[in-house]
């Protein structure tokens, strides 16, 4: 089937099998492999993208359901190459280890902060409940989102928990 959509600001037109999942269109047709597949059941959130302003799990949608949609993937998040504050927060606060859940986690955090610019720790934890991470115990993911929230409010982020080293 014919499908056309906008991905990271660029128009994409392609033919897919009707059963093709959006995540496979992104990864295998468009080569945007930053969006990952971590489960078969729309549970882990590694495939999270932003579609028409809302976060969606792209393994839950058929590609044809994204007809005409405006999709942002992790590759499109850094405007003009500059890191999004959420990306910066994950780097600054060690919010990732193996990096596999990270693109989905970052996209969900972007969605969370667009709904709530000053989330409490509890709100961050519940807001990211649909994204699994097996490496970090979520501790530094929460710190990363707190960092990003402060930056997006134009405030100084909370200091890191570790002592700033000599390096």
């Amino acid at each position, binding site marked *: 089937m014919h499908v056309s959509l906008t991905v990271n600001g660029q128009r994409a037109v392609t033919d897919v099998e009707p059963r*093709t999942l959006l995540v*496979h269109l992104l*990864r*295998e047709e468009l*080569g*945007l*492999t*930053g*969006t*990952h*597949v*971590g*489960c*078969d*059941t729309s*549970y*882990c959130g*590694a495939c999270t993208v932003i579609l028409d302003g809302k976060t969606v799990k792209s393994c839950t949608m058929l590609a044809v359901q994204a007809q005409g949609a405006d999709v942002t*993937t*992790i*590759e499109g*998040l*850094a405007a003009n190459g500059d*890191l999004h504050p959420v990306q910066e927060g*994950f*780097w*600054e606060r*060690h919010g*990732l*280890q*193996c*990096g*596999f*859940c*990270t*693109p989905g986690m*970052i996209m969900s955090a972007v969605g969370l902060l667009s709904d709530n610019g000053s989330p409490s*720790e509890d709100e*961050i*934890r*519940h807001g*990211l*409940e649909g994204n*699994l*991470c*097996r*490496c*970090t*115990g*979520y*501790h*530094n993911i*929460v710190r990363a989102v707190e960092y990003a929230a402060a930056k997006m409010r134009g405030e100084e982020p909370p200091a*890191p*928990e*570790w*002592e700033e*080293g*000599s*390096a």
Partner: protein
Amino acid sequence: MGGGVGVSTTSVLGGVVKRREDPALIRGTGLYVDDLQLPGMLHVAFVRSPYAHARVVSVDASDAEAMDGVRAVYTAADVAHLGDLVTQVAVGKLRPLLAGDKVNHLGEAVAMVVADSRYGARDAADAVDVEYDPLDPVIDLKEAASDAALVHEDMESNVLLAWEGGPWGDEEAIAATQQTIADAKGRDDTVSVSIEAVNQRLLPMPMEPRSVVADWNVGYGRFTVHSSTQIAHALAGGIAQTFGLSLTDVRCIAPEVGGGFGCKLNVYNDEILVCFASQQLGRPVKFTETRRDAAGSTIHGRGWVATATITGTGDGQILGYELDGIADMGAYSQNFTVAIPFLGLFVGAGQYSFPTHWKVACVHTHTMTTDAYRGAGRPEAAYYLERAIDAYAREIGVDPAEVRRKNFIPADQFPGAATHIGFPMDTGDYETNLDALLETAGYEDLKAERDRLRAEGRLVGLGLATYVEVCGFGPSALVDLGFSWAAYKIPSGFSGSGLVRVQADGTASVIIGTGPTGQGHQTTWAQIVSNQLGIPVENIRVSHGDTAESPLGIGTFGSRSAAVDGSATYEAANKVRAKAADLAAHLLEASADDIVFADGGAHVAGSPDQQVSWSDIATLAYQPHRLPEGMEGGLEAHAVFSPGNATWPFGSHLALVEVDGDTGDVKLLRYIAMDDCGNVINPMIVDGQIHGGLAQGIGQAMFEDGDYEADGNLLKWSFVEYPLPTSADLPSFELHRTVTPTDINPLGVKGIGEAGTIGSAQTVVNAVVDALSPLGVTHVDMPLRPKRVWAAIQAAKTNGSVS
């Protein structure tokens, strides 16, 4: 060569450096195996057994083979000539690449379909018609150990071996220890307290499913294999061994690997089979697990039942500890399978000096293979020990911290202390560590707060546990105990290596034999080399994971990579530094002994204004005609580090929980950890490792359950049935550390990858049992999901009303 080279520049060991690997990972430009698309690449799906135990009557692939885009369907007969799956510790039944006339666990691969597309392969796998004749499975561990029915009809027993000690391998000493404990039990001033507990099977579940792409080049006679593995060199060797090739005929690449936790520390049948298919079909072939594949066909961890008994006096002096257990190996042995409980044996007596008799039998069942999952044997050992000590402390009415303190191996026994099986330990100071935890946490205040809330009728509990871990494997001499990696053609034992090369522009390339699954090697290794050379971290690039370019390393597992391969890299950097001192001395017309490395270059001590840069030094190295006579060109060095022992980190953890008496819901309120992993290279990364380790230990305590049903079914096919902890389930962790460096390696580092997991499950369960203790509850098996906790509360209430 310059010997006593001047003292180094500002140290970057012990400092936070933001991770070098992160910019790619947060932009989505990191390459994981499933991201690979090679020209002409074909896709694999497996036909898997829906039974735990059955005869395979027939396999009819004719419909599948007739489907569009299907290139081949292979069954056991097609690959029989390749033998069983290559296995390091070959004790027990080895895994056939594809099941032949019998299947022995749910999810066992019976046929492999190769097709043009991912979806097409899946469709064709569903069209393969396999007729089974179901048989009764052996699932229960005690039943398996009794040999009432055999898992494999051609084996004499389901019991493969029992790990027992007692001092090392000495039957007389084992008997003497048993007699000592029996004598203690016979005294009228002692009590014995036992707990029978399940340490349930777990599914490792890294977020990246395993994935492999094999590409046979018939012209070169060479495989190029990308795999999501923790052991690229062993995989290359395993493929070479299977196909009768040399090590140089197989190039394995582990690119970004999305978590492993031990489950990628195996050579898998699918990795061999895609190679076979690529060779047969002359095309690259990819297999990527679904999460369902991962649940049933990637190794599992834990799976023990055991009874732990503490015997001691009424004032807390423990006179004996006994563990009698059975560990589930699954249907087939893979890389380390039967060796996992062996790791538990090492630390069976934890931080304590009491007589210990520890015996765990390894049995086959009709389930998926168990092998290394984060902690691997050591969490199980620590769980039983620390649960039993808590039960004993409760029985005699002595504070659990006090009981532990009374029985520690004293700090003054180091160096020279040994485990209960006589294996030497490196360094330890357990009492200082526990005291630091109790003081930092405000233990007395927490107890008072718990008692105050308890008086209000709330079910609040405090849990304490300590652990000692054996990791940083080494020693190299494990080869002599049979852990040689020879099955994978890399009989290197447990040594490590590193290669440091200063490029002509003064930047440094570091190539290491081990690779990360999230641990941040690119950053930590850059810090090690920067510290020795004074080259800024941002000018150092660390490469790993490609067996064609990297020196031999057996892998990142057992919290060993920094301690062993990091130490090798440290020594390689020192070799480069010594040569660079000679080169700088030549440039500066000075003695190498007077050269000081600082500010991204070198100068003569006392003359910092006359500085030569690393680029100047390296340029000289690559223009050998300018060198003094007898000096070789080039500026690189390789080193192999041979550890004389494993390392022995330790720590103590404290948890505060509240149980909802109406629902059984457990709320983890605080988690406070005091870990000691020796020196710390990057505190940010070390803390991150502990966070993740805690989440997996707490996951076992509260959420995860990979046990099979009695009929051999595994109802854990997705994250719905196998819940990992989510962000909403966990608190922020409170981490602290004591620092007791090891003397086993020059960095003084012990390893931190598994400590959080090894220390945490029993800490949480001890807290929950403490919370329920006013009701008379003495034990609840993991995972402490609401239903199970609620049932324990109800049972206690019922029993209470009866008595």
